[in-house]
């Protein structure tokens, strides 16, 4: 599976994703500069975390209008896979590729900590190797991760089962105490109706080797690898 890792001025998790894909998964990967238009030959494009354009105006606002994101729209239309983590999730929302917006954490603190995520939707290439209700442990590292959307969109997300991860306790119970940023409905990650564009605040690339303190993030990458079919399409289930 051919991966691309997008780099904006201010991106910081690009090397981590590149390392996991090349050194842990042993898959081909290349960096994609934010001015590039050409995403052909790639199966999965990763939008990593960081502070693209210094979070100027709003987190992800400027990056969401960059040339590579314009190209990403065609890439998504053609059925390509996109994983946005942290600032990548913010960019996907600002670009309108996912609904809603990420706002300032309710606690006002930048939160850098381990979180538990309960898996809600396994009908995506990113999660098909997981069990519904499975609890994953992954770190977060953000100041603006509180997911917000209007009541109508939230109802649609729930009805179409587009919420993929919710913050939970170690037993998978979705509680207020386990919500690190005040996110609506404890939402930590959502997907588009086609199941091809996933945005999440936690960092799977920082939980992909035992030496990092956990390997639950790797389960998502392994799901992805197992979903690629010879004709270039992806399995959902």
């Amino acid at each position, binding site marked *: 599976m051919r991966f691309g890792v997008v780099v904006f001025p201010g991106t910081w998790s690009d090397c981590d994703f590149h390392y996991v894909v090349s050194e842990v998964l042993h898959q081909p990967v290349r960096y994609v500069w934010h001015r590039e238009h050409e995403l052909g030959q790639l199966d999965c494009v990763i939008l990593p975390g960081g502070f693209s354009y210094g979070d100027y*105006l*709003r987190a992800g*606002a*400027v990056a969401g*209008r960059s040339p590579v994101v314009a190209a990403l729209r065609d890439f998504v239309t053609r059925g390509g896979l996109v994983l946005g983590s942290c600032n990548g999730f913010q960019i996907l929302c*600002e670009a309108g590729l996912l609904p*809603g*917006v990420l*706002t*300032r*954490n*309710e606690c*006002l603190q930048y939160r850098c900590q381990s979180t538990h995520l309960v898996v809600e939707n396994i009908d995506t290439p990113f999660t098909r190797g997981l069990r519904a209700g499975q609890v994953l442990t992954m770190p977060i590292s953000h100041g603006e991760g509180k997911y*917000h*959307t*209007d009541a109508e969109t939230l109802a649609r997300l729930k009805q179409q089962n587009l919420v993929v991860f919710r913050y939970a306790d170690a037993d998978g119970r979705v509680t207020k105490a386990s919500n690190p940023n005040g996110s609506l409905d404890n939402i930590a990650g959502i997907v588009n109706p086609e199941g091809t564009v996933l945005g999440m605040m936690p960092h799977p690339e920082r939980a992909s080797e035992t030496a990092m303190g956990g390997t639950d993030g790797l389960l998502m990458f392994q799901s992805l690898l197992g979903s690629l079919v010879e004709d270039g399409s992806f399995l959902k289930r």
Partner: protein
Amino acid sequence: MKVRVLVRLKPGIMDVQGEAVKRALAGLGFSEVSDLRVGKVIDIDLAEARPGEARARVGEMCRQLLANPILEDYTLETVDDLAPREVAR
């Protein structure tokens, strides 16, 4: 033509930044502040002399980038001179 854009969080959206500033003011003795919300001012100088046209263009800028319609409202002011009337030193 100069246009001033005021971007504010919509009513009902919790302004955690405003809350923090309000608390800091209370700490300085300004306990009379009952509500405080932080917004943004964006001053734009553009090569368009007709106020209506300038406002239309800036409105389009707001819709495409300057404001996020999920969270924020915006208002436009066309002004001849954007220099502040009162300068505090």
